[in-house]
């Protein structure tokens, strides 16, 4: 991988980026920066505005207002300049099903303008990366999802772009291939490539250096995983095991000390307003209402807790 040309430490700078579709605001005054060589995760539920943002950053969609530079180029004024500096892989993998593996590589190399001298080397690189040596004549539709995914990634970085956009890159791929894929992303990042990736798999967010939580087109939270979990710093998160989770949640929500409760697998997670509240006190009050509880334990917040908390707060505002 080549080292990015721009000396600037920020590969992507987004300021008040907004996109409206009619009266619907898909992306609402989004601002953040992505540092060079960083894996930046874009987390949010479906329809939160992740794809719209990524399409604007790729120069595929004009922003309604606000600005963004990618690799030092303005996405609104110089989309072609942006396109020359990025790789993009969408959730559909975008391979030509009727063309062989080799023909797909050849086509994308030509379209991206890979110099003929470099072609043989880049082709070998992609085949090795995708694990498709010896299957150059295969059609993409005959390949398992993981191979298709890595081939699509390979085709998107044939021209060695310093910035890479991945939109839901792990859809329909088995867990082992997903792990392999993230290892590739990590290698790319170590070689200096900036990666902006959207996902709604919370477990995948752990691979990212920093995360942006998007809700209803707005930036709801931003930081490293550890930083994000700090939102629980002056509150307590407890896990309550009970057979009557729905009744327990109703009772918890009625309590002054409990900020919110949510179903977490078979257990209930409750956010207590302060660190001073004794979990045993809660149990006693539940017992008074004839609600039996198996156990109550303080737990470390997971990203899912953070996400639910952030969405809850955003919904209240």
């Amino acid at each position: 991988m080549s080292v990015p040309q721009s000396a600037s430490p920020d590969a992507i700078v987004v300021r008040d980026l907004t996109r409206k579709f009619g009266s619907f605001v898909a992306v609402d005054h989004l601002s953040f920066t992505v540092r060079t060589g960083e894996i930046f995760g874009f987390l949010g539920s479906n329809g939160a505005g992740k794809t719209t943002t990524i399409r604007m950053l790729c120069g595929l969609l004009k922003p309604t207002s606000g600005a963004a530079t990618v690799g030092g180029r303005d996405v609104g004024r110089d989309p072609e300049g942006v396109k020359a500096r990025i790789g993009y892989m969408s959730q559909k993998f975008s391979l030509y099903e009727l063309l062989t593996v080799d023909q797909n590589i050849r086509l994308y190399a030509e379209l991206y303008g890979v110099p003929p001298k470099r072609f043989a080397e880049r082709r070998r690189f992609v085949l090795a990366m995708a694990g498709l040596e010896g299957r150059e004549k295969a059609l993409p539709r005959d390949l398992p999802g993981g191979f298709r995914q890595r081939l699509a990634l390979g085709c998107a970085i044939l021209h060695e772009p310093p910035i890479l956009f991945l939109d839901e890159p792990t859809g329909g791929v088995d867990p082992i291939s997903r792990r392999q894929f993230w290892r590739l992303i990590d290698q790319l990042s170590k070689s200096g490539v900036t990666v902006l990736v959207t996902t709604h798999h919370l477990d995948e967010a752990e691979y990212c250096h920093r995360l942006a939580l998007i809700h209803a087109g707005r930036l709801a939270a931003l930081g490293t995983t550890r930083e994000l979990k700090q939102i629980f710093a002056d509150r307590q998160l407890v896990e309550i095991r009970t057979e009557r989770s729905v009744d327990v949640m109703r009772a918890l929500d009625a309590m002054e000390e409990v900020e919110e409760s949510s179903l977490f697998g078979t257990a209930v997670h409750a956010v207590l307003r302060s660190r001073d509240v004794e979990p045993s006190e809660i149990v006693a009050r539940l017992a008074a209402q004839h609600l039996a509880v198996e156990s109550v334990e303080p737990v470390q917040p997971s990203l899912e807790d953070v996400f639910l908390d952030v969405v809850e707060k955003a919904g209240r505002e």
Partner: protein
Amino acid sequence: MRRLFFMIWKELLELRQDKRMLPIVFVAPILQLLVLGYAATTDVKNVPIVVVDADRSSGSRDLIRTFDASPYFTVTSVVSSVNEIAPYLESGRAWMALAIPVRYGQMIGAGAPTTVQVVADGTDANSTNIALGYATNLVAAYAQDLMTKRSPGRSLPAGLQADVRVWFNPQLESKDFMIPGVLALLLIVMTVVLASMGIVREKEMGTLEQLNVTPLRRWQLIVGKLLPYGLIGIVDIFLVVGVARFWFRVPLLGSFGLLFLLSLVFLLSTLGLGLFVSTISQNQQQAMMTAVFFFMTPMIYLSGFVFPIENMPAVIRPVTYLIPLRYYLVIVRGIFLKGVGMAVLWPQALALLAWGLTILGLATLRSSKRAA
């Protein structure tokens, strides 16, 4: 240029790989030619007739023989009463009945005026009209013949005779009229449907978006997508003209070069239309339906391919000027059957060119606006 070349390379590879495409591109034209050349003919031949011979004289038999000998009629039955014809016409065993009255032979022998009656099935008004015309001519010619035979020396009664000559298609063969039209029909079906579906397929697969993030220019994308379908159109031009000329023996009186050139102009408008359809469709089914129902069907009906524009109501006629197929049909039929050149066809050529450039421009504008 290199990028454009590889776009076309890719498109042709896909066409070759797609097992369903080759038959559509090469077999469908032949099939359509055969159907329209042989089956969809408006020629009326071998019309089955039933004869009521109430006279049974040598004179009546002579008239029946005349009908049977004509290529246009086949006498299926001879009955003796007018009451018997209904079942024939109802069941369709006969389209027409010829009734020869009693004492017909006697009257003819005496040179007295006489009448035969023709009853026709009017369900298929077009064919019946044509057949009635043949029957009238046949009877008139027969009467003339009798007259000359009887008094060879005497001059004919001074009746007025129209000497009708049909130019360009003297036998009024419908295949000569239909087959050049098939060229127009095929080009529009092939290129509009294939081009629009080809582009929308990429939209569905997500490859269009992938192409949009490459440095491929918009014009390269559009030309790269349309040119391969234009090539298919060109192959079909040779195929259809070849089959028309050498299999159906449709005369090609004008210049093939001019026909080819103006066909390319026509392709410009059909490919532009294909691109336009692709910009207003989200998936291949939509593209297909939009192309067929909103563009092709009205175009074919209003172009003069089947129904003469002159017969359309005055309100509809101006609409036909908006239809590129209209101009192309005039060009194709003009070059094939009349052998005319640019001196006559320039208004049509110009209209086609204008239409093609307009729709291409509109579609290009629309497709780039979508990405903006």
